[in-house]
């Protein structure tokens, strides 16, 4: 059942998204992204995904806004109107794609339907056996760390790799210098 809270939050989300793409001022757009995150975190809470809401609130309000602002400070914070005119072709493309996707939704299970295919396969096993197989009340933690530990291991590696990439792109100069200095010290120490 889709009650009034869901309806209002979903509609707000769509409105904020439109506001974000219409803004020329990137600073304001980044601030609105924070509100967008907050709204989606509230939606996750009402959809019972408390862990996801927690993560989204911390990431969206804290980290990603700060990183975007840091980037704006290092580059420029206005779109140039000359290069960002309204274009009709992309609009037609997304409207057509959206229409096809909306047509496809009529075959989808309704919101909250317990008979939906997604609830038939492995999820009942997790819900029923977490207690006796893992012994941890929070099923999300049990699935995250134990049943699907390989997934999480991969995700952690992706975060590690992204960090190494950022360090090479932005701090590469300092890292190279440090290695050079150390090698010079080694050479002096040997001689």
């Amino acid at each position: 059942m889709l009650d009034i809270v869901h309806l209002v939050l979903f509609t707000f989300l769509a409105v904020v998204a439109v506001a974000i793409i219409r803004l020329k001022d990137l600073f304001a757009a980044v601030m609105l992204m924070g509100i967008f995150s907050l709204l989606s975190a509230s939606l996750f809470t009402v959809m019972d995904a408390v862990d996801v809401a927690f993560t989204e609130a911390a990431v969206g309000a804290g980290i990603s806004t700060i990183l975007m602002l840091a980037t704006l400070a290092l580059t420029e914070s206005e779109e140039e109107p000359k290069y960002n005119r309204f274009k009709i072709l992309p609009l037609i493309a997304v409207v057509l794609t959206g229409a096809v996707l909306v047509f496809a939704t009529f075959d989808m299970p309704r919101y909250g339907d317990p008979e939906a295919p997604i609830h038939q396969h492995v999820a009942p096993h997790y819900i029923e056996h977490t207690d006796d197989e893992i012994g941890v009340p929070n099923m999300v933690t049990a699935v995250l760390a134990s049943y699907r530990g390989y997934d999480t291991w991969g995700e952690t590696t992706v975060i590690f790799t992204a960090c190494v990439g950022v360090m090479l792109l932005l701090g590469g100069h300092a890292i190279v210098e440090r290695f050079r200095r150390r090698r010079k010290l080694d050479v002096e120490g040997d001689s």
Partner: protein
Amino acid sequence: MISHLIPRVLSKLLIPLIMLFALYVQFHGDYGPGGGFQAGVIFGAGIILYSLLFGLDQAKEVFPPRVLEIFVAGGVLLYGGVGIAAIFAGGNFLDYDVLAHDPHHGQHLGILLVELGVGITVAAVMATIFFQFAGRGRTDD
């Protein structure tokens, strides 16, 4: 640098609480919402708040980038190490049942260590990325 007296005083009260809350989220993740990812992000946000208010140089003295780099790799290694330890204990990779005398205790231990590894990596990664962005453009010598 402009002195932000009131935010500084307030954040001196808040930052320890933020970090304490991150640890609570980390170790209470088995019983309530939370876990390594959330705790790492909150801890990282605490470090970022500190460096926003007290300046990058002081933040780099409190959280040295070299140490953060070690933590970035250390968390991933802790995660992988738990998997390898399970192999040596006679199970499969990341099979926590064999880590302790009782499967339930093994699972608890494995989940705790694995989440700790995730939390360490995420916190260190968030702080490192912020330091890289904030340090850009002023130390171009």
